[in-house]
C-alpha cells in the first residue's frame, strides 16, 4: 500500500462516519469521500500533504456531499444540506479551515453496521468496508471469497440499512446491552479471522488483526463500557504473543512451547491497564473473563508457573455466564494442567457426545491420554483431530505429535 492510501485508510472511518451523519446514506457518503480522496491524490503530490489530512478530506468531502445531495433534487435533502452548510460556516478563521478536529461519529456508524437486523457476515463486511476503510478487493482476499460476493453482501446491507429504517443512533442505556454484544462480536470475529491461518494469506490476515485492535481501541475511547475494555485487553494479550506463535521452522507453536521473551511487554501492559479498568465497574462479562484468563498466561514467566487454580475459577465463572461444552473442555484442560489429570480426563471423556465434531476436542483428549500413558487411545484421538483439521499448519503439527506417540507403542 502506498503512503497516500495509508493516509486515506487511517482517516476514512472517522471522516466517513461524520459524512453519514450528515447524509444518512452510507453509499452517498462513500462516494463523496472517494471524490475527496481522488482530489487529494491529484493535489497533495504537487502542493504537499496537509498537516491535518483528516480535516482536509472531511472538508472537501462535505463540499462534494453538498453537490451530490443537490443533484438528487429531493425535498428531504433540504434539512441535510442546511446541517452541512451550517457546519461549514462555523469555521470562521480561514487558516483553521483545514485544521480542526473531525467530529467522531464512529460509534453511530459501528452500531449501525453491526445492527442485529443485518446478518453476521454482512455486519463483518460492512464494518471492514466503512470503519476500517478496506476496499472490496481486500476484504474478498482476506475471506477467500470473490469480489462479486463481498460486493453484493455490502450493497445489500447498505440497502437494508437505508430501506428498513435502521437509525444512525447510539442505542440508549436501555438497549445498549442488547446491541453492544453484536458490535463486540463483529470486532472479535475480525480478529479471530486473522488467527485461523491459511497458507499464503498470513500478511493480509495480520492486517485484519490490526484493524480489529484499532477498532477496539477507538471503541474504548468512545464508550468505556467494561466489556469494551475487556475485549480490547483480550485481543492485546493475544496479539502480544504474535511473534512467538510461529517461527521459520515451526509454523505453529503452542502456548506451552512459546519463547516468552518474544512477547510484546508493552501490549501486555496496555491489556493489563484495560482489564484493571474494566474490573472497577464490577460488571463481569465474557470478554472480561477471557481477558483475565489471558492475563494470567501473560504474567507467567514460564509455562510451569501458570496460575492454573485461578484459571480454573475463571473458566467456571465463564461457564456460568455462558454454559457451553467448549468452555467445559477448557475448564477440564485447566484442571489437568493444574495437576488433577485423572479427574480432568474423566470430564473430557464425558464431553465426547457433545464435541465429537470439534477438532480441538480430539487434540486435547489425545494430549491428556498421552500424559496418562494411554498411547493407543492418544494416537486414535490425534488421528481424529487430524481428520477434522481444516488447515495444513495445524495438521502438520498434529501429525508430528502423532509420530512421537507412535514411538511409545
Amino acid at each position: 500500500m502506498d503512503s497516500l492510501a495509508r493516509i486515506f485508510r487511517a482517516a476514512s472511518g472517522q471522516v466517513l462516519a461524520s459524512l453519514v451523519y450528515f447524509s444518512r446514506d452510507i453509499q452517498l457518503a462513500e462516494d463523496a469521500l472517494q471524490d475527496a480522496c481522488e482530489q487529494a491524490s491529484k493535489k497533495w503530490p504537487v502542493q504537499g500533504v496537509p498537516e491535518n489530512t483528516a480535516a482536509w478530506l472531511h472538508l472537501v468531502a462535505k463540499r462534494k456531499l453538498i453537490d451530490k445531495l443537490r443533484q438528487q433534487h429531493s425535498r428531504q435533502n433540504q434539512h441535510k444540506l442546511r446541517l452541512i452548510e451550517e457546519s461549514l460556516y462555523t469555521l470562521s478563521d480561514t487558516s483553521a479551515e483545514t485544521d480542526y478536529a473531525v467530529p467522531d461519529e464512529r460509534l453511530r456508524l459501528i452500531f449501525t453496521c453491526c445492527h442485529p437486523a443485518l446478518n453476521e457476515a454482512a455486519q463483518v463486511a460492512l464494518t471492514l468496508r466503512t470503519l476500517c476503510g478496506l476496499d472490496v478487493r481486500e476484504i474478498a482476499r482476506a475471506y477467500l471469497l470473490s469480489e462479486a460476493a463481498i460486493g453484493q453482501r455490502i450493497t445489500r446491507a447498505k440497502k437494508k440499512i437505508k430501506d428498513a429504517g435502521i437509525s444512525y443512533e447510539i442505542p440508549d442505556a436501555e438497549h445498549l446491552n442488547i446491541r453492544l454484544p453484536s458490535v463486540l462480536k463483529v470486532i472479535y470475529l475480525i480478529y479471530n479471522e486473522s488467527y485461523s491461518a491459511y497458507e499464503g494469506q498470513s500478511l493480509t490476515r495480520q492486517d485484519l488483526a490490526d484493524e480489529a485492535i484499532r477498532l477496539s481501541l477507538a471503541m474504548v475511547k468512545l464508550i468505556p463500557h467494561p466489556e469494551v475494555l475487556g475485549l480490547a485487553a483480550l485481543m492485546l494479550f493475544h496479539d502480544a504473543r504474535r511473534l512467538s506463535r510461529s517461527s521459520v521452522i515451526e509454523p505453529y507453536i503452542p502456548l506451552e512451547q512459546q519463547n516468552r521473551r518474544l512477547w510484546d511487554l508493552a501490549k501486555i501492559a496496555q491489556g493489563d491497564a484495560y482489564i484493571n479498568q474494566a474490573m472497577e465497574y464490577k460488571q463481569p462479562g465474557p470478554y472480561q473473563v477471557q481477558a483475565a484468563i489471558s492475563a494470567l498466561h501473560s504474567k507467567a514467566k514460564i509455562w510451569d508457573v501458570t496460575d492454573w487454580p485461578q484459571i480454573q475459577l475463571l473458566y467456571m465463572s465463564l461457564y456460568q455466564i455462558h454454559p457451553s461444552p467448549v468452555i467445559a473442555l477448557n475448564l477440564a484442560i485447566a484442571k489437568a494442567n493444574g495437576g488433577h489429570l485423572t479427574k480432568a480426563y474423566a470430564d473430557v471423556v464425558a464431553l465426547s457426545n457433545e464435541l465429537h465434531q470439534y477438532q480441538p476436542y480430539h487434540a486435547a483428549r489425545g494430549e491428556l491420554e498421552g500424559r496418562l500413558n494411554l498411547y493407543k487411545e492418544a494416537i486414535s484421538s490425534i488421528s481424529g483431530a487430524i481428520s477434522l483439521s481444516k488447515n495444513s499448519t495445524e495438521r502438520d503439527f498434529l501429525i508430528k505429535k502423532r509420530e512421537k506417540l507412535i514411538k511409545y507403542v
Partner: protein
Amino acid sequence: MQFLALIYAGENQDDVDMETLIAQYQVFDGQAGGAGVLLGGNALEAVSTATSVRVRGGTFELTDGPFAETKEQLGGYYLLDCKDLDEALGWAAKIPSARYGTIEVRPVMVFDQ
C-alpha cells in the same frame, strides 16, 4: 416511518387460553395506542378460510387455501408509526404472539415525489 408487523404463529398453539390471550392483546393495543404508534391492525380468521387468487393468461384462477402452506401462518397484523426500526422492533417484541410465534417487521415503502 410506518412499519407493518406481521404476526405469524401456529394456529391453536397459543401458550395461554384464548381469553387470556385476548386480554393480553387488549393490553398491547392500550399501550401502543397510548404511545401514539398504533395506526391500525386486525386479527385474521383461520387460514382454513383463505382463498388465493391468480390471473394467468387472462384467466381467473382460484385456489382454496393460503399462498403457502406453512406451520406458522399469518394470523394478524399491526400498522405502526415509529421513528426507526429499533422502536418498531421494540413494539413487535411486546406483541403477545411474539412469545411463541414470529413477528415479521417490514417498513412501508415511501414513494418520493
